[in-house]
């Protein structure tokens, strides 16, 4: 992925496409860890990961709203939308990879990296300029000449926020030329992490970005956001520290109730499950295929929902619960011929791999 500073509306749209890819890219790793837990074990850890996964779904929807507001066309159905795990995040952090793995300490360490707070200062220091490393990053939506990488998701969104402000300053309200009917509002998105924000102008765009950034990494370096909700990074950190945060706590030193984690009550799912792991004909292969078909259909439905049919989010919720049930069933089954390894679903449609 190559990104340059946002100078045009096209640049901004490209960033928002990447934002949607980015938000989605975190969900299969979170859900795989979530569903790898034994059914009745780890209620606390289950809740922690589930809350974060649901908020990523909100962020995906907020990104779609902003993209629609500036005249873009969300598309989750392209084959390149979903990363092939293990993958680097689409905003360019290149010191770690994410994968679809079983719930474990290592997996949570990776989740902490995904959600790590921004450290860079203002302006250019949030970019790291490096040569493009082939295959390491997700395919570019549209390549530019400069390769820019972000240290964290927060810095990536800070650039979107500043780009929006710059373009709004230049273009005025003309920047928000999108059809308001394409916005997903509270009628079709509810009890999913926080209130959805319909984006129609600069202040609502800023509000949407604020929800994404604060839920991810806290407000102004704090561990809670404006609503008093714990940021994702610190939610995950509780699992490693074995204790809940409570208001007033400092980062790294939670003082709330103990949080017990049973790291062994987990199905040992195959890391970074791929369709070619399931070559043996039979019910498992059928189930993995059915899952990917359902997931591909689901992404197509989301694409339609984000392109003027927000009402389709209601049946998409039913899709999601069905996807959960299919995934759980697969994860509880062993991989044939691989003792001690369980199967796992592949979160991508069945479309053939695109030829470059």
């Amino acid at each position, binding site marked *: 992925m190559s990104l340059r500073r946002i100078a045009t509306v096209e640049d901004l749209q490209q960033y928002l496409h990447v934002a949607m890819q980015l938000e989605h890219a975190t969900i299969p790793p979170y859900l795989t860890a979530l569903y790898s837990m034994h059914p009745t074990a780890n209620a606390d850890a289950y809740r922690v990961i589930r809350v974060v996964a649901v908020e990523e779904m909100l962020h995906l929807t907020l990104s779609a709203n902003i993209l629609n507001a500036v005249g873009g066309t969300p598309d989750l159905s392209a084959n390149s939308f979903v990363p092939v795990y293990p993958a680097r995040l689409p905003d360019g952090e290149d010191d770690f990879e994410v994968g679809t793995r079983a719930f474990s300490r290592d997996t949570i360490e990776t989740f902490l990296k995904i959600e790590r707070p921004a450290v860079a200062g203002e302006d250019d220091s949030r970019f790291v300029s490096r040569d493009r490393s082939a295959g390491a990053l997700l395919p570019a939506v549209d390549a530019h000449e400069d390769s820019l990488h972000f240290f964290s998701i927060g810095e990536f969104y800070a650039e979107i926020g500043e780009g929006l402000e710059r373009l709004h300053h230049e273009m005025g309200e003309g920047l928000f030329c999108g059809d308001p009917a394409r916005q997903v509002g509270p009628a079709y998105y509810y009890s999913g992490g926080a209130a959805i924000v319909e984006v129609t102008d600069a202040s609502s765009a800023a509000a949407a970005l604020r929800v994404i950034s604060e839920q991810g990494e806290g407000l102004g370096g704090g561990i809670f956001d404006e609503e008093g909700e714990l940021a994702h990074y610190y939610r995950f950190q509780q699992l490693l520290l074995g204790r809940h945060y409570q208001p007033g706590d400092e980062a790294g030193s939670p003082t709330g109730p103990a949080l017990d984690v049973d790291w062994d009550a987990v199905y040992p799912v195959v890391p970074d499950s791929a369709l070619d792991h399931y070559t043996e004909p039979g019910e498992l292969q059928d189930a993995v295929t059915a899952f990917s078909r359902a997931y591909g259909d689901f992404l197509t439905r989301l694409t339609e929902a984000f392109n003027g049919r927000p009402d389709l989010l*209601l049946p998409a*919720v039913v899709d999601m619960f069905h996807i959960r049930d299919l995934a759980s069933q697969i994860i509880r089954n*062993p991989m044939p011929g691989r003792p001690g390894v369980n199967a796992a679903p592949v979160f991508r449609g069945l479309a053939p791999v695109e030829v470059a």
Partner: protein
Amino acid sequence: MNDELHEAFLDLSSTLTGYSRFRLLGTGQADPYLSTTREAVGEEVLAELLNTYTDVHRDAGDDEKALDTGLRARILSDRLLGPVARNVIKMWFVGTWYELPQEWRDVQATRGHDSTHVVSPASYTEALLWPTIGANPPGAKAQGFGSWAAPPTIDAP
């Protein structure tokens, strides 16, 4: 968990319930149900049940009818094994272990944990009863607001 025991229990359960091993494993309940059975009837009776099933299965080969006849004759009609096999069926379908009949308890002088109990919160939601009747477990496995306006999306057995 002894692998052989585990495999035999799955095979027996699959034959008794009509659900595939994949579907049974997919409930996540195979281990708890095996443990529950063992605790209730003891190692020896469990071993006899599974060994008898293995024999019946071997003798029947691929002959479904012979398997059916063998199961009825040597397990379901057996005074010792029959009630246990019926309990295993009920447990898979409703997630509850039922206390064995008094006659069985008298003969066996059972000391196990045999009282009627729901095996776990998950065993209720994962009971085979639900896919069998094409419904979702009431109060569990949320399907989303308004999903009741559409037919349930249940994978048939």
